[in-house]
């Protein structure tokens, strides 16, 4: 099989990834301007990305009596200081207006007699989030001048003189490749799952928390073009229901279930209550022989049990299926919990693109929002959308100012009169696609390489098997082995377009692994238990109150450090 059709499209703004942030950006752009938009989405925007199964609550909201600054303080504390306050603040300011917009789109909220949203704890509000993605997708479909390309997987940016001018990808449904030229590009491809060996083996390997289809494409594409990245060492490890890997917030915050060990002792207070400490405590209890660990739900009322079943159906139906199948609900049986494999997710921790306050990356004209953008943890759905709105507003402004110093494509096209002829860059890329599609001589399958990568990361870069711990010697081994796998990945074979996507997913993950390893090595302290547990440097120190940033240059990762950025003023890139 070979790609024989190349399509060249032109748009004002290209959005890569039609998830929470991507869809919201399209809505914002069309509400506030006349610019044309293309959304390139590898799945179908109706149920793609994190929101596929639904969400349980809006986790980021400023409840009555609190201020956006309170949210900044909370996120800062949870990340022990390594955040971008300018990003957190500008996001927090918009959380509530995003929630209101979601209500306009049809999302159901729990309200009190006064018509106010009902809070869950001090930062969440209660909703029925089962259909949040179809609601967003419907709203996008109604927009004019927005073209949605479903099942188009983007693999590369087109960058000239550090300015983005488009992106390249291919359709999984037919054998065509796409060159999409744009004046501004928003990357909203989410985070990266599948880097480490997952909780569940074999047949259920994809029963993981983060979507296995978010493979770190956005990070990898940026890295390949020299974009600056930040804080990849702050991995996210989720504390989840055993087996189903369903969220636990509903149990902890909803019915107040405490973390208990096998003896029934509440252990969470012993280790601290930040997100990473909750995971760490569970690891330690198990290591010291007091596992398994549970969320104590025994003794809740039948009414609460029924409500829980419904709540899980709205976001993680496998957990309800488990309760129903076993014939024992949460009131009769505590829910066992475990830590997941580490993910790289800028919406929960702070890994991702290094952006300015407007969410522009270090590549001119390229913006990032949602889980792919760094420096701004605890953003969740509403925060991802708030970032999309900020990026959209700035892209509109920049287009109005006609701010593109690099209009080479337009000029070239005008001269030749061929606006729809593929560029040389595109032709090279298609050659690469066709090389994988035409390869018949290979020993290793994509799947084998993926498993090998996950094993390396698990054993040598702080996966589940090593209780999330690592040292420098191990990281060195991990790097060497990942580089070897990268070489092998150049020679895999793809039987069809779907397998071609698998090839690129593997390559993206390998590159992200390399960045994770370099960042873990770069932070010589242990600031967050489990998330980055460096046994060579088991303490944290004031000296490390700085960002670990990186740039991929000529095949190697350059690590450098930046001073913390405060809330005051607008942050712009400076080198």
């Amino acid at each position, binding site marked *: 099989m070979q790609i024989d059709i190349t399509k060249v499209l032109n748009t004002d703004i290209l959005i890569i990834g039609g998830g929470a942030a991507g869809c919201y950006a399209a809505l914002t752009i069309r509400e506030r301007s006349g610019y044309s938009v293309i959304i390139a989405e590898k799945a179908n925007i109706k149920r793609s990305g994190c929101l596929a199964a639904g969400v349980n609550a809006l986790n980021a909201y400023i409840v009555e009596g609190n201020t956006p600054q309170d949210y900044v303080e909370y996120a800062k504390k949870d990340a022990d200081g390594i955040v971008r306050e300018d990003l957190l603040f500008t996001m927090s300011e918009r959380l509530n207006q995003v929630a209101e917009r979601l209500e306009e789109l049809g999302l159901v909220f729990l309200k009190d007699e006064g018509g106010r949203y009902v809070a*869950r704890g001090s930062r969440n509000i*209660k909703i029925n989030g089962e259909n949040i993605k179809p609601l967003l997708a419907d709203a996008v479909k109604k927009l004019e001048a927005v073209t949605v390309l479903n099942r188009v997987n983007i693999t590369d940016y087109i960058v000239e003189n550090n300015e983005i001018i488009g992106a390249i990808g291919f359709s999984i449904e037919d054998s065509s490749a796409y060159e999409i030229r744009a004046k501004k590009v928003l990357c909203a491809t989410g985070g990266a799952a599948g880097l480490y060996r997952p909780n569940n083996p074999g*047949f259920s390997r994809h029963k993981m928390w983060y979507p296995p289809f978010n493979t770190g494409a956005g990070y990898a594409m940026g890295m390949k073009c020299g974009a600056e990245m930040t804080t990849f060492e702050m991995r996210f490890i989720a504390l989840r229901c055993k087996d*189903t890997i369903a969220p636990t917030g509903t149990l902890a915050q909803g*019915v107040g279930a405490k973390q208990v060990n096998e003896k029934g002792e509440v252990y969470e207070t012993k280790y601290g209550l930040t997100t990473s400490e909750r995971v760490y405590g569970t690891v330690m209890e198990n290591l010291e022989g007091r596992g398994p660990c549970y969320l104590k739900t025994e003794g809740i009322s039948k009414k609460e049990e029924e409500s829980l079943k*419904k709540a899980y*159906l709205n976001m993680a139906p*496998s957990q309800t*299926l488990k309760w129903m*199948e076993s014939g024992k609900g949460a009131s009769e049986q505590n829910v066992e919990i475990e830590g997941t494999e580490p993910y790289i997710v800028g919406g929960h921790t702070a890994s991702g693109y290094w952006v300015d306050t407007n969410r522009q990356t270090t590549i001119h004209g390229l913006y990032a929002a949602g889980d792919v953008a760094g420096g701004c943890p605890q953003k969740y759905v509403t925060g991802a959308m708030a970032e999309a709105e900020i990026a959209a507003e700035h892209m509109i402004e920049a287009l109005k100012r006609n701010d593109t110093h690099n209009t080479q494509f337009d000029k070239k096209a005008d001269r030749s009169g061929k606006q729809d002829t593929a560029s040389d860059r595109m032709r090279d890329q298609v050659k690469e696609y066709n090389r994988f599609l035409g390869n018949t001589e290979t020993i290793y399958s994509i799947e084998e390489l993926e498993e090998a990568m996950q094993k390396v990361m698990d054993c040598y870069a702080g996966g589940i098997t090593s209780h999330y711990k690592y040292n420098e010697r191990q990281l060195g081994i991990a790097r060497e082995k990942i580089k070897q796998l990268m070489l092998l990945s150049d020679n895999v074979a793809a039987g069809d377009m779907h397998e071609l996507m698998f090839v690129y997913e593997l390559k993206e993950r390998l590159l992200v692994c390399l960045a994770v390893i370099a960042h873990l090595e770069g932070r010589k302290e242990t600031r967050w238990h489990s998330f980055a547990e460096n046994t060579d440097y088991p303490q944290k120190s004031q000296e490390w109150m700085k960002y670990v940033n990186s740039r991929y240059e000529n095949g190697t990762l350059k690590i450098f450090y930046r001073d913390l950025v405060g809330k005051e003023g607008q942050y712009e890139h400076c080198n």
Partner: protein
Amino acid sequence: MSIVIDRKRCTGCGKCVLVCPGGLMKQEKDGTAVMKYPKDCWGCASCIKECKFGAIALYLGTELGGRGGKMTVSEKGSFLIWRVKKTDGTIEEIAVDKRESNQY
């Protein structure tokens, strides 16, 4: 994690194939839906919600402690009716009102 497709009930409408966030399902020549990459299923249940004919069921793999129960969903007015058929033939249903928020 994965799904089973009841070929007799599948009408070949293709909606499940369209909606899968991993693009893991395909249609055979006669339109019948098939799960091409069962090991890659995330278990999100998008396809079972999409199927208006109850032809797709979600089940838990044995590694997850699955006991062979099959979960389907249908829509009745504003309700989503979730139904689990256990291996002993018993059926349990939970109706969730789409107009109602989660209590937790």
